[in-house]
């Protein structure tokens, strides 16, 4: 009985961890403080867990969760609703199709793989934003966002990897 309780507790923990990572990342990205100054946008932390878990545990990071994380990011960032949600879904679609190629990357390649995903997300957001306002907006803010996001991916990947190995990964065989 105790073993069964442990099993279901662990399974529940494993299930909620990827989404919790996404929610925490959204709050981190939207903290109204910045060490980088006002002219450098906050990194797009929310994309990192979406990308990571979509690669390693797509069963725990479904498109619906990617969409919900995007909606939360839209709501807290103060921008028009749906833009980042749609961008995350578009990125998810690309990762989902090219999962083997992305997952096979290691070292600097893993960061470059994420950079490709971040480029898709920022590009999609820029395109939707242009359509939303019906004018061509300057690219610089999204280039900055993309650069800062890729720069901050390596330390976040370290944390996500640790969570995967110690919390979610060992439970994988239970499914």
């Amino acid at each position: 009985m105790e073993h069964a309780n442990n099993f279901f507790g662990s399974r529940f923990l494993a299930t909620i961890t990827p989404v919790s990572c996404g929610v925490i990342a959204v709050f981190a990205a939207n903290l109204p403080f910045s060490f980088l100054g006002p002219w450098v946008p906050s990194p797009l932390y929310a994309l990192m867990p979406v990308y990571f878990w979509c690669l390693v545990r797509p069963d725990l990071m479904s498109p619906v969760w990617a969409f919900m994380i995007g909606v939360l990011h839209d709501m807290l960032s103060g921008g028009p609703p749906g833009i980042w949600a749609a961008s995350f879904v578009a990125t998810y679609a690309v990762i989902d199709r090219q999962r083997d190629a992305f997952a096979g990357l290691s070292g600097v390649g893993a960061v470059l793989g994420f950079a490709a995903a971040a480029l898709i997300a920022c590009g999609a957001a820029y395109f939707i934003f242009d359509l939303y306002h019906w004018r061509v907006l300057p690219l610089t803010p999204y280039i900055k966002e993309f650069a800062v996001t890729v720069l901050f991916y390596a330390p976040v990947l370290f944390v996500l990897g640790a969570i995967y190995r110690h919390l979610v990964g060992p439970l994988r065989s239970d499914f």
Partner: protein
Amino acid sequence: MANGSWRIARTRGGAHLPLVIVAALAVALILFGKAQSSLFDRAREHVMDWMKPVLVATHGPMDGFNRWVGSIGEIFSVYEENLKLKEENARLRQWHNTAISMNERLKRYQLLLHAVPDPALSSVVARVIGRASHPFLQTLILDAGSTSGIKPGQAVVDSRGMIGRIFLAGESTSWVILLTDLNSRVPIAVMPGNAQAIMAGDNSPAPTIETLSQSTQLKTGDQVVSSGDGDILPAGLPIGVIVADGSGYRVALFADQTTTQDVEVLDFKKPPEQLPVLSPKDLPVTAAGLPPAAPPPQQPALSPTLAPVTAPPKNAVKPAPVANKPAPQNGGADNDAPGIE
């Protein structure tokens, strides 16, 4: 760091079908948000009100840390900075005295000319508890909201000049859209010359100038103030000075959004002009000593060609022109009625 070193779960859980549905949902959300943005704004207000204690608690240490980091480089130039500030302070004192005497003179002239006084401004002082920087969105979060009388559209100024406008007001917090934000548009006047234009943010530290008249010549150092057009912002709020930027011009803002801590939210509402209620005594005919005209009898609707011509009253006399006053041309008699301007 190697993605390949992890065993990847192959379960897709039928992800393809949800992707299509979720993509459709995302598009629907964008369209719905465009049409009904107030719903999301209300949700944001509630979230920010709910997070206010956390923001207030964390703002102090974070701000102290930022200030400490920022001041490291300044340690080596404290002496020069101090001398420069003393010199600037002495110069500003002279200007301060000049401004006081000019202000007194302006008041005297306004009194002599019976000028309409500027509308009184009330204000709320609020503290900045957060700053957010996203692509195309630069905002401040204040610790005062609708319970303090803050409403969307109000101007936000710091000790140096205008910094932005309120765009969301929760119960106890409010969001400020900065002048540098891409969505910011403020009607301005460039002095001297009072050239009217629109100042538009583009996420750079110095906003651009749009819709300026072709004949207007700008010069570096010209003062930029709010024009007050649209009756949303008070006229004459200091904003910045014109600076040259390649082939065009930009506005170097007085206010520093990166360091400002306390701001003032100006409650500017120009009440709609209330016309006095007219009594029969106020009519110019009555003032001229004549009985007011009887109201026309109710007639069934007739075509304009068949409408009867009302004969003037028998005792109608053309009023004599007022001495020392030229006869009005069009409707001038109405303008002579007391209380009607």
